[in-house]
């Protein structure tokens, strides 16, 4: 086992653990913070997998922007959800059962597949190469995704515009 390999396992363990902790937190702020840890771990893995740009983006966008947005929302609406049934038994037990079956099958599926044990050689995509590649090959998708972002913007705006008090009409 190489050093990087060991590091991978450690990071994987951290990521999984952080995620697992995150999803079981009653306090959503805590959950988000743990999830940020998880995303940091993911970013590290990206880095070792030769995607430094993505690692950075993961930290900036996922851990930074997205999670912060979550935090904003959670804090803005100020809900501690004390009454929340954290993990209702009639939900998590079936979910856990299917989750376990799923894991078994996932293991089976991954190991049964030819070439699954292919070693991951080290190859680093420099941000420059990556950017060139993306722009050369996936300009189309970039255009589309820009449309998506525009859409999200307008959508969020519209939903806000249409926001009304219960009982009053449309126009506020």
């Amino acid at each position, binding site marked *: 086992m190489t050093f990087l390999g060991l590091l991978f396992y450690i990071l994987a363990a951290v990521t999984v653990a952080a995620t697992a902790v995150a999803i079981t937190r009653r306090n959503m702020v805590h959950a988000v913070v743990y999830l940020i840890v998880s995303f940091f771990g993911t970013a590290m893995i990206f880095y070792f997998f030769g995607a430094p740009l993505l690692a950075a983006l993961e930290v900036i966008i996922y851990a930074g922007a997205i999670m912060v947005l979550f935090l904003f929302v959670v804090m803005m609406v100020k809900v501690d959800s004390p009454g929340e049934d954290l993990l209702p038994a009639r939900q998590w037990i079936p979910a856990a059962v299917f989750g376990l079956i*799923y894991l078994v*099958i996932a293991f089976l599926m991954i190991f049964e597949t030819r070439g699954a044990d292919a070693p991951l050689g080290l190859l680093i995509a420099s941000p420059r190469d990556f950017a060139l590649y993306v722009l050369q090959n996936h300009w189309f998708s970039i255009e589309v995704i820009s449309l998506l972002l525009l859409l999200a913007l307008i959508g969020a705006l519209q939903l806000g515009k249409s926001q009304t008090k219960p009982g009053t009409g449309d126009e506020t």
Partner: protein
Amino acid sequence: MAYPTLAALIMATFLPFAAFLLIMIFTRMKPGLSARLSIGSVAVSFVCSVVLLAQNWAAPGPVEYSTQFLASSGLNVQVGFLADQLGLLMLTIVAAICLLVQIYSLGYMAGDPGFSRYYAFMSLFAWAMLSLSVSRSLLQIYVFWELVGLSSYLLIGFWYEKFSASQAGKKAFVMTRAGDVAFFLGIFVVLLNAGNLGVLELNGPTATRMPHEVLTLSALLIFGGIVGKSAQFPLMTWLPDAMEGPTPVSALLHSATMVAAGVFLFARLFPFFSLSPEAMGVFLAIGTISMLLASTMAMVSRDIKRVWAYSTISQLGLMIMGLAAGGYFAGVFHLTTHAGFKALLFLCSGVFIHHFGTNDFYELGRSGSRGLKIPTISIVIAAAALSGVPPLSGYFSKESIMSALAGLSNPMWLLAGLLGVFLTAYYSFRVMFVMFFPKSVEQESGHAHAPDHAGYRAMTGPLVFLATVTVLLGFFEAPIKNFLAGMLVIDLHAPETNWSHIAALVLSIAGLALAWFEFGRRGAEQVGFVEKIPPLYRLFAERWYLDHIYGLFVDRVIDRGISWLCWQNDNKVIDGAIDELAGGTVEGGRISAFLQTVMIQYRLLAIFAVLVFLAFYFFFEKI
């Protein structure tokens, strides 16, 4: 066959049908015209039949005319005419009695709201019965057989507003239908085994090619039709009920002609039946049973028409006995004479009923039925003929049947026959004595005067004619025998045993005497000996409980049994299952719809679970 003959046959048979159609479609509203049409057509038929009879009197053998019918159905059905001696004789009898009865009906049915309808049905009957007489194949006979059944149904239920009349019509149709189904099956058996339904072929060599068992089976099945139509045991109870119809109808259909069709069919297929002694034995037994049972019933009835109806059954049984005993001529001759005197009996009774408005002959007697001279004389002649009093026609025909029976090895049949003769004389004259020597006469005057209007004349004319025939016909035994001898049917047994003649005569006189003793002599209490034995009386009056058995059968087994089961099966089992299925589907829909409304996380879980299952299935499928 010469064309004139064919033309005569066609005219004889189809004219009444034309009359039927014309009346039904055009002249329902014009009773007079309807009657004229009907009578005219029958008159032409009668003339044609007489001409044909005369023409063929000396002809050597049967003449047949046939044409292909239904060639393309895959069956080879030949239709046409078979004008042999038997057929022509029957044709003439039927045409004659039809004509007489229709003339008689002018008076009897006058003023009835359904006058046109009556004549339409009469014409329908005439067509069917005349055609039946000269049909050349079994299938054709079956067709007209059913049609006479139909006209019988319609005419019995003529006064349909009377519940009993419509009931009786239905009963008649269904009971004869039951017999006809056997006949129908018999036809199939014959067709499939002999490949031919022609009467001549069956009577000829074709039948001998059939296996014996099959032949017996088919004979028995065909005899089922005879049992139904001629009201033999066990399908006998419809005939007395059929007396609900107008009396001329009873005279025509239910005594003289239609019911005799059974016997006629027997005679038609006589050579064929003769090939199976077993079947003949069964026929003999059934004829005997019917004759005796019906006689006993006649002994206790107080309804004049019913007495004659029972007597009809009994006489038909006697004819069948004669035929089954091998006395071909005896049977046919008795058929001929019986047609005359039985029609006469009914027509006379009709006059009384019409006049006094009651069927009860005790009542008639009290009302002074003696006052009507012509009917009184005629009915006595007819009753005497029925009883076998010489020299009336009945005497001769009965004697020949007795001699046929006497020819059998087992004397029991003859004894039964003689018993029948005794009983016949007894019950006939029971009626005569009660009617004409009543204990008390309520109204000597009043009705006693013979009415003198056109209707009455129309009614009495046929009486006189028939009475004459009854008196004279007996003396034509020999010519008729000669005529029928041309049928190539030799009586199997024709021994001349004098003692049976004498015994029959003695017994009929004895019956007459007993009747006189109990009913006729001055001061007789007019109560028969049977009536003094209550259980026996009840047995006879209830017609040996045959109707009860049928009623129970229809009610319990068919109506409340099979039919109920079928209906319940439809409702509960089949429809129940279908409704259950439909209800289950709707219920499933409700459940399914409910499952779509569960909380969103369960839905996501369901998606996940299905995906897990599908992935799992991949490995499962590989195994």
